Each structure stands twice: as C-alpha cells, then as structure tokens.
C-alpha cells in the first residue's frame, strides 16, 4: 500500500507570495495533520482535520489555512510568505481515533528567498 505522499518535494518562493502544499493520506485514513519543522526542532503542530472538519489548530497565524477534501486528501495554504516560513512541512495521516499513530510523509521543503 502507498504511504502518505506529499507534493511538491521542494519549493522555492519569495517573500509575500502564496504557497499551496498537498497531501494524500494512506488509503482508509480519515484524518490528516500538518506540521512545520525547522532544523533542530521537533515538528510543530499546525492543523488536524478529520472527516473534512478542523479538529485542532496550533499556534500559527491566520496566514496559515488548510482544508480536507471528500477523498480525505488535504491542502495547506500559506499567504504572505515570510523568511521565517522556510521549513520542512510534514503531513501525517491516521485513522482518526485519538490514540492511533501518525503516519508521516517525507515532507515538502519550502525555502523563502
């Protein structure tokens, strides 16, 4: 079975631009979570979606938004990019039951110039 897939794998943007990152969960998984990871830090929680509804939100500005589609895939959108948004963006899927493990993709490396 295919794991969690993210696209693109790498992306370069300039300050002020907008970016959309995409995630396809493992088949049968109904929950998708997004994380931002900068070098030397653990993944920072951005959003969790379950059955197309936002279940949780981390401490990120409103420039960050996400949505989940009927097929359970998800997009993360970031507006008005800042240099500090440069990071690895990880997507994880799970069945949605609270204690179930997260299955991660290998992320999108976003660089802001």
């Amino acid at each position, binding site marked *: 079975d295919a794991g*969690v897939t993210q696209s693109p794998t790498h992306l370069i943007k300039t300050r002020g631009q907008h970016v959309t990152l995409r995630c396809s969960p493992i088949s049968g998984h109904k929950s998708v*979570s997004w*994380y931002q990871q900068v070098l*030397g*830090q*653990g*993944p*920072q*929680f951005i959003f*969790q979606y379950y059955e197309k509804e936002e*279940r*949780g*939100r*981390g401490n990120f500005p409103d420039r960050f938004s996400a949505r989940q589609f009927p097929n359970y895939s998800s997009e993360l959108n970031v507006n008005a990019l800042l240099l500090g948004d440069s990071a690895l963006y*990880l997507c*994880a899927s799970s069945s949605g039951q*609270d*204690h179930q*493990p*997260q*299955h*991660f*993709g*290998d*992320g999108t490396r976003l660089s802001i110039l």
Partner: protein
Amino acid sequence: SQKIEQNSEALNIQEGKTATLTCNYTNYSPAYLQWYRQDPGRGPVFLLLIRENEKEKRKERLKVTFDTTLKQSLFHITASQPADSATYLCLPGGGSTLGRLYFGRGTQLTVWP
C-alpha cells in the same frame, strides 16, 4: 501553557550499551504517549505507544515507561547499534490535549562502534 521537554539534545553512546531518553511534560494530562524515530530528510516513523494505565511497554529491543505522577516517559534501546542513530521524538496525546498534537524537540542519538 503545555510544555514538553526531552533530555539533552544529543546523546552519544557506545554500541552494545543501553540508551535512555527522557520525555517530561508539564501543564497537561495526556492519555497516552507515543515515541517516533526520525532520520535526516525523512518524516518521523512511529515506534511505540503507551497508555496512561500502562507502566511499561516493550517491542524487541525497545522499552517505554510512563509515570503519570512524575509526568515522565523513559525510552530505552538495549544492545544499541549504529543503525539506531537517529532523532527520537515523544508525542503526548489524548486527554486534555485532544485535537492538538505537540512533539518534543527530540533527542539526537548517535551510537558509535
């Protein structure tokens, strides 16, 4: 606010020894705690889950303990091997954290021959 601390950012041990990693949390009461392994450039991979009513969990050379009184989890790798070198992350979840998934910053383990 919720806080998760993992012991020293880096841990170096000799092959064959036992590695012990610590995860401490404050200001919340998770119902479970998960441990993940992350290799450079890859997404985290789930290793073990321990629930609040379990004292200890084992899987092959891995052992996890969970002390809700001390608000601490210990992660042990016995008979460590160079292939165990990676960053290990803890993720307390459920309970008062439902819907929000906050990782520790991780401990980078290096096992030298």
